[in-house]
């Protein structure tokens, strides 16, 4: 694969920055990280693979990362990298979109694969997971968002040397005022990184019954995920746990689908799993066509028996 010259990366979280730096090293000759944070964090970016750090300075609690869009935009226009990769958090999407609008292009979102063939070619899911679309930007700079798991972080290399360039802050013209931050009662779960996942769907009749799936997950050392209706219909689990085209995309070794019918939107989130196991009472559920192992039966009978067997086997 040929390489492009300059790749820039922006991420909110350090783990994501490490993955994007690794991706940048694969795709480009030079990697620059745009960092808002402490001096130590700029050093960290270099050990994770950046050659250059554009340092926006220390984060001030009264500011928001979005306040730096104008600063980053001026820098982009000046340095004209071939590719800018952004972590697709809500903030990341807003930042990428505002930068793209000002640069006269669209963000190529949620890249599942990036390939260099003269231009940067980006593949991502469309139509609720029915297809992968490959697109390229016709502008000088391509802007993409790249989710967790597309690239694997490189081992930290403390001998790496790099440049840290301090960037002056430009006051934004349309600043939004931060009144308050509330903590969200959210489970910090990273389904994308889980080796084993138990997914629950509407075959579960009551919210409290999710604990049966949780118990099974505990027995096999798995995380619990769910289909969209569980997170955004009945709200039994937080949205961080939902799997599918607009939720998490999994690459676990084992995925166990409990009471999940297997709509295409859900299947795209799991079809990269090495092994898929399904429990569903409906023989015609599409999930069985995509399963390695399955049981057509009542999950309220199957799960307790399975849990018992795993316990007995310890």
């Amino acid at each position, binding site marked *: 694969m040929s390489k492009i010259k300059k790749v820039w990366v922006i991420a909110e979280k350090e783990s994501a920055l490490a993955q994007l730096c690794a991706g940048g090293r694969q795709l480009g000759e030079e990697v620059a990280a745009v960092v808002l944070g402490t001096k130590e964090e700029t050093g960290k970016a270099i050990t994770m693979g950046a050659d250059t750090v554009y340092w926006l300075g220390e984060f001030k609690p009264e500011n928001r990362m979005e306040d730096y869009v104008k600063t980053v935009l001026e820098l982009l226009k000046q340095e004209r990298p071939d590719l800018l990769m952004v972590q697709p958090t*809500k903030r990341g999407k807003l930042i990428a979109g505002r930068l793209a609008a*000002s640069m006269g292009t669209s963000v190529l979102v949620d890249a599942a694969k990036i390939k260099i063939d003269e231009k940067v070619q980006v593949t991502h899911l469309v139509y609720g997971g*029915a297809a992968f679309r490959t697109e390229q930007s016709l502008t000088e700079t391509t802007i993409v968002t790249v989710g967790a798991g597309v690239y694997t972080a490189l081992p930290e290399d403390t001998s790496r040397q790099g440049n840290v360039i301090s960037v002056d802050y430009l006051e934004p013209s349309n600043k*939004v005022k931060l009144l308050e931050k509330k903590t969200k009662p959210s489970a910090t779960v990273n389904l994308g990184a889980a080796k084993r996942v138990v997914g629950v769907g509407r075959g579960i009749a009551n919210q409290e019954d999710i604990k049966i799936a949780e118990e099974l997950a505990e027995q096999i050392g798995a995380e619990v995920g769910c289909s969209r209706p569980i997170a955004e219909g009945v709200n039994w689990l937080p949205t961080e746990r939902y799997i599918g085209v607009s939720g998490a995309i999994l690459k676990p070794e084992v995925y166990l689908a409990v009471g999940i019918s297997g709509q295409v939107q859900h299947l795209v989130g799991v079809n990269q799993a090495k092994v898929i196991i399904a429990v569903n009472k409906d023989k015609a559920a599409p999930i069985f066509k995509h399963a390695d192992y399955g049981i057509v039966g009542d999950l309220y009978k199957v799960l307790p028996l399975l849990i018992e067997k795993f316990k007995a086997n310890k």
Partner: protein
Amino acid sequence: MNVISCYKIVPDEQDIVVLQDRNLSLERAEWKIGQYDLNAVEVGMQIVEAVGGKVSALSVGDKQLENSKLKKGILSRGPEELFLVVDERLGNADAYLTAKALKAGIDKIGSFDLVLCGEGSGDLYSQQVGIQLGELLNVPTLNAVSKITPAGDKLVVERTLENEIEVLEVMLPAVISVTTDINQPRIPSMKNILAAGKKTVTQWGLSDLGTEGIQKPTEILSTLAPEQVDRKQIIFEGDSEEVVQKLFENIQKELL
């Protein structure tokens, strides 16, 4: 408050056919209003019901937009008026071209206090158009907004991020993209549907807006259904102890 709610019409996913060569055919697809856009219309209605004003609906796309059932569909949910920008080139538009066309429509409408968009389109779900539109209009813009409270010439909004909720004060005019859980869109009554047929629809082409030169900055190389992964397909029937034992043994084998 002068509110413009944007929407997109999308092919019904159920009707998308995967062809032998893994390409997709949308030929037999019914078109519908993007489900996440209904939240944006509903937010607009609730705001004007609370503080007065008017909601207009705006969409850009190709001739599918002219379908009278879809026009009635959006107007039956409350907006007083509908504006459409129709051009063949907008049929497969990307986020930037869509935002450019929406901006041209908004410039032609003349003024606004608040533009609302859904969380993402029902087909491509890039979650970018509202953001781009705000930037192109050079007004404050936010995504992931889960609550809006009008406060004079400002809004106080809650923005739900991954690990926190921001409470923000936004000066109007602004462009806001709302989450799907901000409300439960209303179901139009027969009376609403009948009334919708009498509302004003204004349609422009790109040349009416002086934007016939706008270009799409990205290019689609291919759109292909994912390759099927071969699965073992060892499916047992029944939920007796013996059957579960067989499944258990297979899971055990895979976990090792």
